[in-house]
């Protein structure tokens, strides 16, 4: 697997122009961002995670592999502090998620299959609401929308009239604007066209280089492997292999 850029922050790192808004991360204080061991997570009565163990370090881009229904989405949602951990241990960004799940959420962005946008509101309404909700100034918003190639023409269009790909770009723009330290993406490439995917890949690399950590599930293995620094294979709610 090719190594696009060293995951670990190297001393002299030149950052491409135009990414100033990614520069706010200080050097990550701790190296381990996700520390999960034997975690069992139940969805109603179904053990979506049946004792999974994994660790993810700062600056890494980790690919989650495996067919549908093996626990990838649950892994992402658990790390975002949205699901109670029935048993086992889960620490994310220094927060113990078994005890308290709310504190970690400010530092995490979770992008699922859904648009996470209000259909009746326009693109700008949505981006303004979501970024203000996570305490971000509007300035970064427009930069993020441009970064994802969302043309000015679409800004005042109600989201329900956008294509899936355009909605996905707006959703990613909101993630960029909220500047999380941990990106949790569930099949982010789905619905994006070629140029969108290219934009996304470079974005993930830039985010990791700026000190954030990216964990994403994907079925497009050729493209994903080019970006990922490491991959975890899931099967039956467990993590069965972990290879560089």
């Amino acid at each position, binding site marked *: 697997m090719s190594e696009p850029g060293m995951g670990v922050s190297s001393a002299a790192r030149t950052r491409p122009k135009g990414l100033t808004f990614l520069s706010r991360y200080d050097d990550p204080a701790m190296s381990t961002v996700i520390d999960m061991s034997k975690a*069992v997570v139940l969805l*109603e009565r179904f053990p979506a995670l049946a004792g999974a163990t994994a660790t993810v370090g700062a600056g890494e881009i980790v690919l989650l592999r495996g067919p549908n229904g093996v626990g990838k989405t649950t892994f992402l949602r658990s790390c975002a502090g949205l699901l109670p951990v029935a048993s086992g241990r889960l620490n994310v960004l220094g927060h113990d998620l078994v005890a308290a799940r709310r504190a970690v959420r400010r530092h995490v962005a979770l992008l699922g299959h859904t648009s996470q946008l209000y259909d009746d509101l326009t693109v700008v309404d949505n981006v303004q609401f979501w970024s203000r909700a996570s305490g971000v100034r509007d300035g970064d918003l427009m930069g993020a929308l441009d970064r994802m190639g969302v043309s000015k023409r679409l800004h005042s269009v109600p989201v329900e009239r956008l294509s899936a790909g355009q909605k996905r770009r707006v959703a990613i723009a909101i993630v960029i604007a909220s500047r999380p330290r941990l990106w949790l993406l569930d099949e982010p490439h789905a619905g994006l066209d070629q140029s969108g995917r290219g934009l996304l890949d470079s974005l993930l690399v830039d985010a990791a280089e700026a000190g954030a950590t990216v964990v994403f599930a994907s079925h497009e293995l050729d493209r994903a492997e080019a970006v990922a620094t490491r991959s975890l294979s899931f*099967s039956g709610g*467990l993590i*069965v292999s972990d290879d560089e």
Partner: protein
Amino acid sequence: MQQAERKDSMTGSLATTTLGWASGASLIVVLVTGLITSPKDANQGEAVRLLYVHVPMIWIAYGSFIITAVYSGLFVAKAASRPDLGRHLDRVAGSAAEIGVVFTGLTLVSGALWGRITWGVYWQWDARLTTTVLMFVTYLGYLALRKLPADPYVRSRRAAIVALIATVNLPIVHYSVDWWRTLHQGASITVGNKPEYTNDILIALLFAVVAFTLVALWLGIHRYRVIRLEEIREEEGIEMAIAARRAEAEVGS
């Protein structure tokens, strides 16, 4: 996993069996005294016999919902930190609520029949009756919520919150209806106030209350154990699902 006793009735045990026989026997006594041996009342005549099956219902209905409210409050306070205790509190709240609904229904029915004879009308819009029927519907909603498929902890916590709100609502309902009715026609003649009863009527009444309370207790314990057995079945289901998932993992990798 606690092993259910191997008895003919899965929810029986020595204590409940004796309690069962005791409450059964005392019910027969209530039947006999209520219908045959106890005297007619001076002014309401035979109708007083209905009180033996009406007054205990009110007492048990309100008592059950007080238990539900207390255990729901304890659940909200303690369940997050101590899940096992939480399950117990939820079971008590749930079984008491179901007993409460059954006995509130009987309160309304027996009250209507009693009203029919003494006041000539099945229903009166006075504070106690209106509050009782609203309480009945409120806890029907509570039971409906408990039956919906959801994560057990989520469902229990929401049910506890609904029970606490219902408890806050009852005095508000009683106060507002009471105020509404007294404005309407002066101090309304509430069904509840007891004209002067002779001693042997009061004794029979007291015995009836005790008898039905034993029955309610017996029902509550059995209902509690049914919930417990259903939870064991669920837990067994989960363990099997985890085992199956693990087997799937071996095959998959």
